[in-house]
């Protein structure tokens, strides 16, 4: 991922707060104020930009004293100056200054090396009633990184304010998000030397993430401000007026890519595509080679966080981050005669469009777009298992910015991948041995169904045995289900379906009452736990990809028995999600046909009731058993 400037690390969506009364008396900790003043000056065509931050927070209880730990992040594009921090103790009529600030680094799982550092300190003597005060200045070294201001944060804020002061020859752009439900006031003022814009809002509730909800930026009220242009001596200079300006800047960065020793890359390309004739085959071979041979290791160091490393160096080192892999693919594909473009993109957790937000905030990822036989294909080699032809799931719906040449670009949307690309087909054969259900099952997984299974298996199985892993993830039958003869084929990034096979023994599964034996053929209860708790749910549900599961379950009626009851067909049909189940009897076999589908990437709040009806109906259908009785 390319560099993302995060000016204030203290914003953590995962931190707690509840109860949303206006006086916030039910809270443990609130912000009395969070104010930011951005001052932009222009001298000799050079910007001086400083963000002055001033915050005041109150400990309503002594429960969460850990909020006293403060961390201010910065990197090579910013510096932090004039930190003033102190605790006020109104009861004791006392203030105590922070007298120790430490500069620290952190190891991050996703980024191996980064120039991100932080200033860390702890407010002294916090307790119930304490008020902490913090102010500092963040100096920005690049006018493209004005960043964002959040009107709301993880705990309530009594007063949030953003002001921006800039000279008359500078033009500012701004756009706010998710502010419909807050009383945001905006005032423009003209001063002797320029303009002053002020946004204020009082009493903003706290925001915390919810299980399987859209990312924070989809509901957090915030504003993005940016410098569009400036004028000096009648001549206008563009900074980020529109997406064209953003692209021009990206083009200058790409221009700095090290193009040394590309012949090494070409040799590999020749080898990888040897004997292949069609562009599609070649493109696929190149993509798979990068997926298989380049490991994800990210370095974020100054502009190096934006400029891909040379393709030859990435080949030598066998590691790189998204932009390194994207650039390597670009070089290899173009060398093979397949038109390809370096592509900037924001992942699904960024809700922005290049047209609305022409700033580096809009994207956080890089891929390669290639045109093969008139098909536009998005290639993301950071996803080691995604098959050629499909974008990584987390880029669906997002705008891709393709660099065509130094001046020209194109913005296109990554399409949602059709449901028919991600299918799990489950063929199950069941027999009954007293009360034990004996099962042979084969699962064929395609598309994202396959990608997810393999990624989870590789990175989450840990030291669990295969049996334990499958029993806790597939959860077939009951918690005592025994797995035998587990095999996996096509456990790779190919388009062929992953084939997973195993035999199961499920003890005490069938129930016999008064000569009737009840057997429930729904050993797989996918989605049964997906009901949304609507009581205090606030944000929409996010779904990673569309998928369909198709089950065919064949139950052999034990000798000497006959079937006396078969459940009626049941279904829930909706364009976005649903299921169908029906049973047939063929000779001595009962066959259950079951299909489950999710054909959307999002369930909005006003659809929760419908979603819950779907789940309720499905759970009801899962409860139905067949009944067999001994022949008379």
């Amino acid at each position, binding site marked *: 991922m390319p560099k993302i400037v995060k000016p204030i690390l203290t914003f953590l969506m995962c931190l*707690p707060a509840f109860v949303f009364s206006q006086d916030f008396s039910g809270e443990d900790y609130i912000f009395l104020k969070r104010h930011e003043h951005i001052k932009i000056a222009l001298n000799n065509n050079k910007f001086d930009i400083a963000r002055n931050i001033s915050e005041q927070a109150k400990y309503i209880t*002594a429960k969460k004293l850990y909020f006293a730990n403060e961390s201010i992040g910065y990197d090579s594009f910013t510096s932090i100056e004039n930190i003033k921090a102190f605790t006020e103790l109104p009861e004791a009529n006392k203030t105590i200054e922070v007298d120790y600030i*430490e500069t620290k680094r952190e190891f991050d799982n996703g980024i191996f090396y980064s120039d991100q550092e932080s200033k860390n300190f702890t407010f002294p003597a916090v307790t119930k009633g304490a008020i902490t005060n913090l102010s500092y200045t963040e100096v920005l070294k690049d006018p493209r990184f004005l960043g964002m201001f959040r009107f709301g944060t993880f705990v309530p804020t009594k007063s949030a304010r953003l002001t921006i002061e800039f000279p008359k020859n500078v033009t500012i752009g701004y756009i706010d998000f998710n502010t419909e439900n807050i009383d945001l006031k905006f005032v423009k003022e003209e001063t002797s030397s320029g303009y002053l814009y002020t946004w204020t809002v009082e009493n903003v509730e706290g925001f915390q993430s919810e299980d399987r909800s859209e990312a924070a930026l989809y509901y957090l009220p915030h504003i993005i401000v940016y410098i569009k242009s400036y004028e000096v001596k009648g001549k206008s200079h563009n900074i980020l007026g529109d997406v064209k300006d953003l692209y021009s800047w990206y083009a200058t960065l790409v221009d700095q890519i090290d193009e040394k020793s590309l012949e090494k890359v070409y040799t590999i390309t020749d080898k990888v595509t040897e004997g292949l004739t069609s562009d599609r085959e070649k493109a696929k071979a190149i993509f798979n080679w990068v997926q298989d041979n380049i490991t994800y*290791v990210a370095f974020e160091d100054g502009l190096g966080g934006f400029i891909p490393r040379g393709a030859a160096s990435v080949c030598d080192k066998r590691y790189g981050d998204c932009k390194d892999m994207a650039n390597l693919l670009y070089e290899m594909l173009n060398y093979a005669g397949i038109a390809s473009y370096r592509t900037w993109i924001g992942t699904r957790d960024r809700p922005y469009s290049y047209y609305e937000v022409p700033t580096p905030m809009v994207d956080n990822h890089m891929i390669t777009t290639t045109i093969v036989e008139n098909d536009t294909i998005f290639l993301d080699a950071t996803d080691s298992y995604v098959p050629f032809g499909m974008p990584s799931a987390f880029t669906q719906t997002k705008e891709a910015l393709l660099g065509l040449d130094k001046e020209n670009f194109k913005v296109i949307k990554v399409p949602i991948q059709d449901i028919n690309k991600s299918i799990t087909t489950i063929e199950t054969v069941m027999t009954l041995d007293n009360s034990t259900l004996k099962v042979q099952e084969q699962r064929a997984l395609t598309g994202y169904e396959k990608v997810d299974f393999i990624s989870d298996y*590789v990175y989450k199985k840990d030291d669990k045995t295969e049996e*334990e892993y499958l029993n806790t993830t597939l959860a077939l039958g009951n918690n005592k289900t025994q797995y035998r003869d587990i095999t996996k084929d096509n456990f790779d990034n190919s388009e062929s379906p992953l084939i997973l096979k195993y035999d199961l023994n499920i003890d005490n599964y069938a*129930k016999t009452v008064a000569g009737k034996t*009840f057997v429930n053929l729904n050993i797989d209860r996918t989605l049964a736990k997906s009901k949304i708790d609507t009581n205090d749910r606030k944000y929409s549900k996010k779904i990673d990809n569309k998928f369909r599961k198709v089950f065919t379950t064949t139950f052999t009626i034990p000798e000497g028995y006959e079937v006396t009851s078969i459940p009626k067909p049941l279904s829930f049909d909706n364009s976005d999600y649903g299921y169908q189940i029906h049973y047939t009897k063929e000779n001595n076999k009962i066959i259950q046909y079951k299909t489950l589908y999710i054909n959307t990437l999002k369930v909005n709040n006003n659809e929760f009731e419908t979603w819950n009806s779907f789940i309720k109906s499905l*759970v009801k259908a899962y409860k139905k058993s067949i009944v067999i009785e001994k022949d008379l």
Partner: protein
Amino acid sequence: MKKLVYLILLVSSTGFAQYYKTYDWKSNPKLHELTSAELSEASVGILKKNIVEYQKSLFGSGLNRFETQHTIVRVNNDYGINRHNTVYIPMYEVKQVVDIKARTIHPDGKVTLLNKDNIKEVKNVEEYGDFKIFAIEGAEEGSEIEVLYTVEKQYDMHGTETIQSDFPIKEARFLFITDGLNANIKAYRTDKSFETVDVNGKPSKQIVLKDIPAMLREEYATPDANKITVAYQCFPEGQNVTHEMFWENVVSNIGSQFFAGEIKQKVIDDIKGFVKDDKELTTFKVASMVDNFIKTNFIIIKNNNAELSDLDYILENRSASEFGIIKAYAQYLSALNIDYEFVITANRYEYKFDPEFFTPGMLRNFIIYLPSEEKYISPSRIEYRVGEVPSNILGNYGLYMNKNFEYYFSKIVQSDPNFSRTKRITNITFDEDIESATLDQNHEYYGHWAITNRAILNLSPKESIKQFEDFLTSSGIEDKVIESFETENTDMNPVEYNPPFVVKAKVTSESLLEEAGDSYIFQIGKVIGTQSELYQEHERMNPIEMDFPNQYDYTITIHIPEGYEVDGLDALKIYKSYTAPSGEKVCKFESDYTLEGDKLVITIQEFYRTNEYDISSYEQFRTVINAASDFNKASILLNPLD
């Protein structure tokens, strides 16, 4: 002039004696032969060699200390590559890096050497200090990654090295060169012992271990603390320090700081605020008041600020290090005439505290013991109050010292063996159509359960609290609806001993009932919440260590609907237990029922009297643990009365 030449000669000849200078990797590396089993591992350590070399300094009485690590690892898949392609070398106590080199030997025999310009320096990382980091260049499936580095460290008499890892290692060597100085070395959790070998004419110690298995993350275990480890000491010339002398030194050094001298005025003033003149005050209550006061007014900080151990600073800023906060406790407790002992120990999941071999790295956790109450205070644990020790310390050894600087070692145990227990009463009714079951639940949690529950409820983010509510109300019922949920005794600052954390909830579910002709199958087993199965496909590696001894008592009453009778009750009778060689029944799962009119009353008792079990009793232990998951799948039938 002549003198200078002599001096240079001396330096170089002594220099030659340093073993690390002659140690190197092979000039023409080849891939190693591996068995098919080894090739099926994500990665396999082929060599892990550590050389710790102490050397008399040329000038003065100081000692030089060099550490060399040489590793070769085969990476067989993506996971293996990801595990080994980033290298972090800690710079803690490092005076200078002598050399760092790394290479990749490719399956085709080609070698990629690390470009040293790509080694990055990272300063002051979290609490770990500085690091040199680099990514391995050229690693692909089937490669071997070889890393060799030597650092010169500040002289420290003590050191440790963890030999075992999360992946198998074919050969590990630890070489301890001490230049004729007095030294001690001890290897933990291996039958192999150190042998004397000759290194450049000096007797040295070496241990060689072959085919070390990967340490598995087993459940009910402390795998990190159970790895094969080496601890060593090397003393300045002419000195020989016994372990006893070290312990005495710790006691006099630390003890003098932690047994309060003069009580500060600020402390006396504070006490006036939180201890009211009350004749009912017991030692326990007063100690609880001190604990509550400190935990709601002081904050513990982990950084390098030396003042956080200074008493005046601590009292003024209400901020302290983990070490410094003890001084605050000492002040308040002494001012209130409470007798206490000070205990140094370690997290048992990381280190097994060894009273017989002094290793400063193990002196990590500081707790306070109240001998008259047989209770502990855990100063750095925000969720604990006067009572038993936190579960991560329970069972480890500790160094106890009193105000007279007398000391002793003891295993840290619970004074109340029944500290942690859960009592659940559930009443189950069905709606008229027998489509839905209603579970009326009344749960009482004691001990560590209560402490953890309070902490989660008070300190966690909303999303976790949601999950927590699910956990407390029969987790695993797929369509469960929580109709009501109330908690009692949630305050984290109680002054009585072990008050129960109470949950009163009402939940409904349709999925617990399945139609079976005119009958209904009721999945009673799911009412006790998800119970996971304890698997064992390979031989158990770790002795059993549970978090803490605990007991569950459940009473589940099913109100049988009118016109129905219950059947299939045999599944409700389960009895599994393990009786230790001492004759004591140490763990048990027992479920039973009685049928009284229209009430089916199921009782379950499950207990684990101790948290430690020998590895040889693993199968018996597993049978008891899995009995709960046997019960989990129990179901009964509701049959119509003709």
